């Protein structure tokens, strides 16, 4: 039986959700917090979205979507265009190539994987920025940002996991 139009639209909307939520995270991270010092070390929320959805539903977070999200992060953040596009793609590629390690593993393993991946991402971003500006950037803020991002991972990841059943129902 051919699904009705409403049903098709519903399915499409569900399939778009991983990308849409990750794009929303980019905007959320740019919100002025008015807390002294927080803006400098604001966690890289979009990376959590990219990692989570690539690990759980790689079909809904393909490389071109990751590229678009990274580009959006660059545009909103004001950094060199392409920096986070490349960094997010590296994380995406890392998970896809190590799928055997990630698929079907418990939360702690995924968190550990995220710790490694985001450390690599932060290092890559730092190196590229240093090359791009031909200047060494202070790495302390980056370190605290890394820690905060790591701390935010369980919160967001748990939130996303709640949506998984509805995603499965849609596809």
């Amino acid at each position: 039986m051919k699904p009705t139009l409403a049903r098709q639209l519903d399915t499409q909307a569900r399939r778009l959700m991983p990308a849409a939520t990750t794009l929303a995270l980019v905007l959320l991270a740019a919100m002025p917090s008015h807390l002294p010092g927080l803006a400098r070390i604001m966690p890289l929320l979009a990376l959590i979205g990219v990692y989570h959805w690539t690990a759980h539903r790689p079909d809904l977070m393909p490389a071109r979507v990751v590229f678009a999200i990274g580009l959006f992060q660059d545009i909103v953040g004001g950094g060199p265009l392409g920096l986070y596009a490349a960094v997010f793609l590296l994380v995406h590629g890392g998970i896809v190539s190590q799928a055997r390690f990630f698929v079907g593993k418990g939360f702690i393993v995924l968190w550990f994987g995220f710790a490694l991946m985001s450390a690599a991402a932060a290092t890559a971003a730092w190196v590229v920025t240093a090359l791009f500006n031909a200047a060494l950037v202070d790495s302390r803020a980056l370190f605290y940002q890394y820690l905060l991002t790591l701390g935010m991972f369980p919160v967001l990841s748990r939130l996303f996991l709640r949506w998984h059943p509805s995603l499965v129902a849609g596809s």
Partner: protein
Amino acid sequence: METPRIITRFAQPMRGLLHRFAYLGLIAAAFGLMMLGKVDTLLMDRARVHVVDAVAPLLDALSRPAAAIENAIVKGREIARIHEENATLRAEVEKLRQWESAARHLESENESLKTLLKWAPPPEAAFVTARVIADTGGTFVHSMIVGAGAQDGVKKGLVVMTGDGLAGRIAAVGNHSSRLLLLTDLNSRIPAIVERTRTRAILAGDNTDRPRLIHLSDGGAVTAGDRIVTSGHGGVFPPGLPIGIVTSVAESGVLVQPFVEQARLEFVRVVDFGLEGILEGSPPPRIEPASRRRAARKEAAKPDEGTGR
């Protein structure tokens, strides 16, 4: 219906290969964009402001609850301290009254001296007040997005201030949003002077909360506690805008604490002082025709060839 086995046997590796090519292509595109951005900043800025313009209403809506919560907290704190604050304010009013009379006296004196000297006043400054709608100051870039753009009269290079002092300048302008490059950003360079000694220097951001004074004109005639103001050289910032206070003088550099608390920025004033200074990205002034410039370059290259041999 089942797909013939021969097709799946070839299709699977082919698909993998295609995926890998697409992935590498996207990575190459990301690096290509970075290179392009390095070469042609103007093109990238233009593309960027359009996207930011499109999401500006969203950012604006998102920034409001945060501002409301902040206001509520600040109000609560103020009520708790109201008595104590009243006493200190009374004392301050007393002190300021004396300053006011001194200022009035100096103002009238200044006025009369100006008429004596036929002093040409600088052009009147116009300003737009704008809300900060996104604080994108991450670890690599210190910038913010403000909710006013070209249609409100904001132009690239305008000075951004608060009541406390200089915050930065406008780096890119969209239709109804623009990007504010904070003075702590790695790419911010502001001609400044030490107010007490009139020592010239450049205030250079380095992505930390305290920018440094570099190129001090007479080797470190500066001490902690000195006020730093803009010098007006280069014609982007008018002279005398307060920037910050020197916090430490060491071998590694002179650090300045800006007066403006960047995390608390909510409303900023975008000021047009009518200055047409040298800005990055603006075309260099053409002084001589290209043919003559080429000839001059050839002349200059000659001695180099001589030493090369």
